[in-house]
């Protein structure tokens, strides 16, 4: 039973355009959501997060949107750069602090 789902295993975007990565969840107890970026042969790196009491959080080129009623969140990257090419994991947590990860989306930004 996948509680956090990323239905797109891959995404290709032209440099300078917007990248939109999507994530759905089923557990209504999740109260904090995170995005991680992972390069090959490295551990995941924290990117941005959002609390369930908010619907948007912005940090530079990265914006995360949360739609609680739809149990959906998305990560927008604008403008996309070739260095953004990586696997992006959506994750969610409850008060326990344990993270539940999605299966990841491979983003490729084409120059």
């Amino acid at each position, binding site marked *: 039973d996948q509680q956090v789902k990323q239905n797109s295993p891959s995404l290709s975007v032209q440099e300078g355009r917007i990248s939109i990565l999507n994530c759905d969840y089923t557990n209504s107890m999740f109260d904090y959501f995170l995005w991680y970026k992972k390069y090959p042969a490295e*551990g995941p790196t924290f990117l941005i997060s959002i609390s369930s009491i908010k619907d948007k959080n912005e940090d530079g080129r990265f914006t995360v949107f949360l739609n609680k009623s739809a149990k959906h969140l998305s990560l927008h990257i604008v403008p996309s750069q070739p260095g953004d090419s990586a696997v992006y994991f959506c994750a969610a947590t409850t008060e326990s602090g344990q993270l539940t990860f999605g299966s990841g989306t491979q983003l490729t930004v084409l120059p």
Partner: protein
Amino acid sequence: SAVISQKPSRDICQRGTSLTIQCQVDSQVTMMFWYRQQPGQSLTLIATANQGSEATYESGFVIDKFPISRPNLTFSTLTVSNMSPEDSSIYLCSLGVAGVGEQFFGPGTRLTVL
């Protein structure tokens, strides 16, 4: 932010043997976790490493297969016991800060079991 290191970075092991992975953090942290990422799949939490007491295992993971030690607040080990090819994965430790949702990950240990 804390610096997290893991040893070994990768290893190739024979079926039936065991491998111990070390995770070292350069500052004292409350929460340490061990994850597994099987090929092409997501990260799955194996257990929470508790300082001075037995680890807390997630469903599907047992202490006999994945014994964990955490003798102090900066160090933990995960042993993968009696390995089979299905144990081929990337194993990652992470640290969490109480009251903060983010976890920070080590570089991972890539294990291949022949």
